[in-house]
C-alpha cells in the first residue's frame, strides 16, 4: 500500500513529485482522505514503503514542507513517527 506524504496544495505536491523523480523515487499523486488533509485542499504522493526514507530525505534537502506522513496499518492511515 505504501506511505502517503501529504502536501498543502497541488503545486507543492507536483514540486515534490519532480524532486522525487530526479532522485529515482516513483510516486503517484492522489487526493488524501479528508481527515488527513487538515481541512485543506491537500494533495498527496503515494510512495512505496521501502522508498519512503530516501524520499523524505530528498524532500528535506529540497526544502519542501510536508503536511504529514501516513502509513497504512490494519486498514487505517496512521501518522508516521519520523
Amino acid at each position, binding site marked *: 500500500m505504501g506511505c502517503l506524504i501529504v502536501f*498543502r*496544495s*497541488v*503545486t*507543492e505536491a*507536483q*514540486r515534490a513529485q*519532480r524532486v522525487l523523480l530526479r532522485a529515482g523515487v516513483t510516486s503517484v*499523486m*492522489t*487526493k488524501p482522505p479528508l481527515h488527513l488533509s*487538515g*481541512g*485543506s*485542499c*491537500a*494533495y498527496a504522493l503515494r510512495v512505496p514503503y521501502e522508498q519512503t526514507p530516501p524520499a523524505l530525505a530528498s524532500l528535506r534537502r529540497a526544502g519542501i514542507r510536508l503536511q504529514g506522513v501516513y502509513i497504512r496499518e490494519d486498514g487505517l492511515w496512521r501518522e508516521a513517527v519520523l
Partner: protein
Amino acid sequence: MIYLDNAATTLPKPSSVCRAVQSAMIAAGNPGRGSHRAAASAAEILYDAREEAAALFGLDDPTGVVFTMNATHALNLAIKSTLHSGGHAVISGYEHNSVLRPLEMMENVAYTAAHSPLFDEDAAFDAMTEAVREDTTCMICTHVSNVFGFVLPVMRLDDFCAERGIPLILDASQSAGSLPIDVSQFKAVTFVCMPGHKGLYGPQGTGILLCCKETELHSLIEGGTGSESRDPRQPDRLPEVFESGTANVHGVAGLLEGLRFVRRCTPRAIGEKEDALTERLADRLDGVRSVTVFRGAGRHGPLSLTSDRVPSEELCARLAARGFCLRGGLHCAPLAHESAGTLEEGTVRVSPGWFSTPREIDLLASAVREETS
C-alpha cells in the same frame, strides 16, 4: 499584411502554441480542484510551464513562477505588494503607464520619475541613484524602453540597490524572450514582470511574475486557491498568494509551448535577429532628411521614428493603408516621450519579431520614403 508590431504582441504565434491551446480546450479541467484525469492534466500543464519558465530565467524554485493576465497585472502585484505599507519609489524616466498609474493610485506612496537623455546609460544610472531618498522603499525599472528600445543599466542598478538594501522591481516586458535574463545573477531584484504574449510567443491573456527573493507578500485579490480551504485567510505562500480563482490553463498551455520555442531558438538569437532587422531599417532610412530615426548605443528591440512632414499617427495610418502593421502615438509611455522630447507628436514604432524578414523591412523603408517625401 506585413506585421511589425511585435512589441505590442508577437504575431504569428508558433504553430505548436496554437495546437497546445486547442488541445487544452479539449482535455484540461480545473487544476488543483480534483484528482480526476482532466484536473491532473491541467495541473501538469501549469507545473510544466512553471518549470519551463524557471529554467529559461534561472529561477531555482518553480513555485516562484506566478501566472498573471499580462505584464500589467504582474507589475501591479509586485508594486502593490512591495509598497503595501506605503513609501517612496524611484522609477526610470522610461516607465510604461503600467508602472506609473498604480503608483499614482496608491495612498501613502510617493514616487520620483528620474528623467534622463535617451541612450545615455550613465545619465540614466545617475538620475535614478540621485533620486533615492532616506525613505525610498523600492526602485522600479524597465529593462528596455517599449518606445525607443533604450536598454536601462539594470545590472548596475541591481548592485546599487543591493548595497543599500532597496528592492528592485524589473519590468521585462520588452526583453523577456529576446535578451538573456538570469535572475540568479541579481542581488536586489525581488520581482521580474513580463507578458506571456510578446517575446515569449504565448497567447494574449498570459503573463508571468517571477518572485526571485524571499520577501513579505501581499495579495492583490483573494479567493479560492485550491489549498487550505478551511482557512478564511488568503495563503501567504507562493504561488497561491498571487493566484486566486481558476487559472488561465488554456492560455498557459500555449505559453508553455511559447517558452519551449524561445528556449529552442534562444533569447540571444531572437534578439540578434530583431536588432539586425531594425538596424537594417535605420540604415535604409539614413539620409532621408524628413525622417528622424531614434537609434543609439545599447538599443534593443523596438525602433522609433518621426517625420517632420507627417505627424506620427497620420504616418502610421497611411502605412496601415498600405498593409503595414505598426504603432503610432505615445505607446502608453508618456514618461519616455517626456525624457526623449517627443511628447507632443509621439513616434511611429517598428518592432520586428522572429518571423519578420529583411524583405519586409525593405518594403517598409521604401513606403516610409514615399509617404514622407
